[in-house]
């Protein structure tokens, strides 16, 4: 291990510290948290986890989050597929402006949209439903999915389309039976990143819901006060939100850069 590999190693240790500390706190009892600095839990307890997994207001929050994230992912990828194909294969009136407009939406600050969204979705009668958050998150997830899929699709030679048409496939049958299987890895990556960016967002998710669809990100804020009792609970809830990312990251490990860079690497 040459000397220079020391640098990434130190960096990874630095990255793991806060996660270790979160884990550490999630297994501590309340008074041990308050009593002071202990690098590992003296009294190992699963109380915080037990509370979260038994109290409906907690575990339902996870269910709500997973629900609207799943809806958003399916919606974003399904809608992005034909659009990405159009961008990758054809030049059409205003295609460059449309692509740029999508980029500007991916970069749009949630703060600018939070108030109008609340009014829009209330007027449409969708306030406090999964659909509201799922639809709101498409603002940045659809552009992301289009960019990533367009990157993958440009890797597939155009002659493949020609071959399928020559074989007699109509456009829909070519698209579903030939093209989608061919870029299945791309779809997997786009879905993963839509899932992630919807899962991590809080501002819109919190403000577009109240009770019926309250996501985990909102449930956690009510305990963010510094008093000891909630810290352990907060840590445990936090650890559980890391689980989806940790599980799925392995499947897209060779495409991580492509996903985050909007498919441009």
């Amino acid at each position, binding site marked *: 291990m040459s000397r220079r*590999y020391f640098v*990434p190693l130190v*960096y990874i240790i*630095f*990255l793991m*510290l*806060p*996660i270790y*500390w*979160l884990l550490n706190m999630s297994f501590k009892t309340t008074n041990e*948290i308050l009593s*002071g*600095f202990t690098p590992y839990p003296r009294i190992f307890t699963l109380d915080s986890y037990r509370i979260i997994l038994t109290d409906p207001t907690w575990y339902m929050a996870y269910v709500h989050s997973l629900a609207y994230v799943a809806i958003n992912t399916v*919606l974003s990828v399904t*809608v992005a597929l*034909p*659009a990405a194909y*159009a*961008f990758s294969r*054809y*030049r*059409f009136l205003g295609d*460059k402006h449309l*692509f*740029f407009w999508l980029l*500007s939406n991916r*970069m*749009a*600050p*949630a*703060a*600018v*949209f*939070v*108030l*109008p969204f609340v009014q829009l979705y209330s007027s449409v009668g969708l306030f406090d439903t999964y659909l509201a958050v799922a*639809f*709101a998150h498409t*603002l940045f997830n659809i*552009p992301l999915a*289009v960019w990533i899929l367009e990157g993958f699709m440009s890797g597939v030679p155009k*002659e493949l389309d020609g071959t399928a048409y020559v074989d007699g496939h109509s456009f829909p049958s070519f698209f579903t039976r030939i093209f989608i299987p061919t870029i299945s890895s791309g779809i997997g990556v786009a879905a993963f990143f839509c899932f992630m960016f919807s899962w*991590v*967002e*809080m*501002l819109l998710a919190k403000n577009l819901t109240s009770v019926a669809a309250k996501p*985990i*990100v909102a449930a*956690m*804020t009510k305990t*963010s006060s*510094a008093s000891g009792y909630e810290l352990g609970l907060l*840590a445990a809830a936090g650890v559980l939100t890391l689980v989806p990312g940790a599980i799925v*990251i392995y499947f897209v*490990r060779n495409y*991580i*850069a492509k996903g985050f*860079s909007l498919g*441009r*690497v």
Partner: protein
Amino acid sequence: MSKAVNNRAWLLVLPVFIIVAFNAIIPLMTVVNYSVQETFGNNEFFWSGTRWFEELLHDQQFYASLGRQIVFTGLVLAIQVPLGLAIALCMPPKGPWVSVCLVLMSLPLLVPWNVVGSMWNIMALPDIGLLGKGLNALGISYNYTRQPISAWFTVVLMDVWHWTSLVVLLCYAGLTSIPDAYYQAAKVDGARPWAVFRFIQLPKLKHVLTIAILLRFMDSFMIYTEVIVLTGGGPGSTTKFLSVDLVQKALGGFDLGPAAAFSIVYFLIILLFSWLFYTLIMPNEAQS
């Protein structure tokens, strides 16, 4: 076969256009609508022209938030881009450990943004937090809830922890796309490591670094959740960045007009940098 011109392709793009328009154009119209009117509740509106915009442009608090935001984004870029590039350069080109490294490094990018805030909140507590206790033990008086310098240090450190891996990943992807032949040619030409970096790696990384810089600029320019959870914009308003300031205005009181004007100016700044991003990243499409 180059791209055929086919306006029927609009049919394929329509669904995306409709949904994103519903989410983007209608809200933006309401914001524009508010920004040129005045209301005192019970939703009567009176035309007020560009009054809110003039007020905003004279509002010291806006410039203070904008100033803090620019400083924060500047710090983020100054630290994360060189650090990310350095780490990527030190990574082994091939080997089993690489994918383990990359997965571990990308974990912070997958943490919900409020959990990032809470995590650092717990970490930085002066008496019981790992960072807080550690720094104080070293004799540095550190309390991020009261000292502006400590607050800034913690917020920037948190963002470095959260997003530097993105720069590492992009640079590493750029580096590994350089064909082996270039490194062999350099070896044969007797080039020293600095020359290899200067003449082979840097020119090839230009594209990737541009993406990293612009992505980091945009995302840090609209940071809200992590800061609000960690410091709530405090102590006082030392860490009240643009988004934090805007949300307090928008969801806070009745001044819908000023908040709307604020939103429009904020979005225009983002639009400007998006256009810069687009022209730099899409060299072929942009020209053709």
